[in-house]
């Protein structure tokens, strides 16, 4: 496991937040995914050893929570909200627009590894539906035109 020194430091700090080490499973997985982009087998073994657990204890957690990825996603990850309030305002069209812009289906990555698209459940911003989260930034009131503009920004940033 090749984690950045600051990741290792944050890992050691976060473990101190809990009286029982196992509680640090989700925080550790988040920190590792932030660092290397996904959760490889190696990370599962590593977290288990770090927290004095069996690998299966970590594996069952990784496979339960949708945010943990077993394979790399795109460098830019687009999450479009699928749930009712967004759908009522045209969320499905917004999702189709992104798929067309990047020529990929749901949960696929563009061949250059740049972009992936996921249709996710309610992002707790239903009042400004449809919403889209790109990496960690929430975009509100996204119609197909705005989806095209956001796609253009992603493409321009990738060229740099």
């Amino acid at each position, binding site marked *: 496991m090749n984690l950045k020194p600051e990741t290792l430091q944050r890992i050691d700090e976060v473990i101190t937040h809990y009286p029982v080490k196992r509680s640090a499973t*989700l925080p550790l997985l988040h920190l590792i995914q932030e660092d290397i982009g996904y959760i490889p087998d190696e990370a599962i073994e590593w977290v288990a050893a770090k927290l004095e657990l069996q690998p299966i204890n970590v594996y*069952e957690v990784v496979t339960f929570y949708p945010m943990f990825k077993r394979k790399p996603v795109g460098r830019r990850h687009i999450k479009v909200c699928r*749930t009712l309030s967004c759908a*009522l305002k045209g969320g499905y069209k917004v999702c189709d627009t992104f798929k067309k812009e990047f020529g990929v289906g749901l949960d696929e990555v563009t061949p250059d590894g740049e972009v992936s698209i996921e249709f996710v459940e*309610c992002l707790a911003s239903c009042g400004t539906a449809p919403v889209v989260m790109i990496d960690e930034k929430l975009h509100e009131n996204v119609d197909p035109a705005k989806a095209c503009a956001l796609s253009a920004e992603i493409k321009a940033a990738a060229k740099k």
Partner: protein
Amino acid sequence: MSAPAQTRIIFKHIDEPSYTNDLACYQRHGGYEILRRAVKRPPAELIDEVKKSGLRGRGGAGFPCGVKWGLVDRKSGKPIYLIVNADESEPGTFKDRYIIHQDPHQLLEGTLISCFANNVKQAYIYIRGEMPEGARILERAIAEARAANLVGPNILGTGYSCEIYVHRGAGAYICGEETGLIESLEGKRAHPRIKPPYFPAVLGLYQCPTIVNNVETLCHVKHIIERGGEAYAKIGTPNNTGTRIYCVSGHVQRPGYYEFECGKITLGQLLNDVCGGPLPGRTFKAVIPGGSSAKVLRYDETFTLKNKDGSTRSLAAADIPLDFDTLAACGTMGGSGGIIVMDDSVNMVEALANINAFYSHESCGQCTPCREGSLWMKRISSRMVHGMARAEDAALLKSVADQIPGRTICAMGEACSWPTQSFVQKFQDEFVSYHTTKKTRPADALQLV
């Protein structure tokens, strides 16, 4: 009658251009003064104020907060934990995120007062994974509060110590259910626990007594201690005290969040006067009043309700005061305050198919009725929408839904079956005839699934 004015207590500073989410701004607005006063009072007195206030939980079930605190096992000698439920994942609900982003210190002050009142020395804020910015804002706010001796050891020189940590979820709805949340915080799959024996107040986090409260609930505590429980109880209506934040989404002119005295505004006033009515050329058709698991209301529906003296009265859906009790009497619930509005362009089979896709995705899988039932309901409704509807599907959906509630470990069994039960019952014709009407749906009809 036109709508009353908003009473903004929790959202007082939300969207104020000059209000920032740092400690200095919060303190310029009187921040942490209530905590300073609270820590000089006996904790039991604070619990008493909350009991007197009548505050009911804003996370979904509407359980009285003071009663919940009263159930905490204080004799076991084990530490007592408090968990802030910031999982906000019930579709249609989006109030807690604004509090966290724009007024995090209000949440911390409410949490610290609640911790002091309950002799809690360790609190966790469980925030959903999809709010990374919210988590960072909270972490910064906690660090600021710690530097100002408001969090950590020997708070304000009182000898009382309390730590607060932020814990991020990772995209599973069931982490909002309090015992699923506790399992998740223990580093496991969010499999809800069986009650009894696992009532959090007795056997919660690490098998210790634990209080789980919603973000908005804990913010109210601050205002209860400021005003006094009895004065707070005068806001709102009897048994439905305080203000409520209504999150309106879907087909209205002005969706958004609005804070009113609980029960002092009707559904019709909120949707028409406050939210500007339906979109041009449309009429309201259906409303889900308390997050997507609440039973749907037909906008043209009329209820017959019992009065206290045994007589009855009739009440149109638009005239329902938005409190906990009247919505319950009308067969639905105030839940999380998320109000989802659908106009006459929406076909109810299609809307239900969208909701069913959500619940089948989110079942934790422990109980057969919930795991299989939610999947069946999804498959049937989705098959209907995709051109393979049959007249008998309405009855089939109902029979699956009816076999789930009451037979599961957690209330997700109810949450996933109530939409199907209510949609099919209240829009029976649409479900029975969908196999023919589907062909006449306009080609550009809104896609919902």
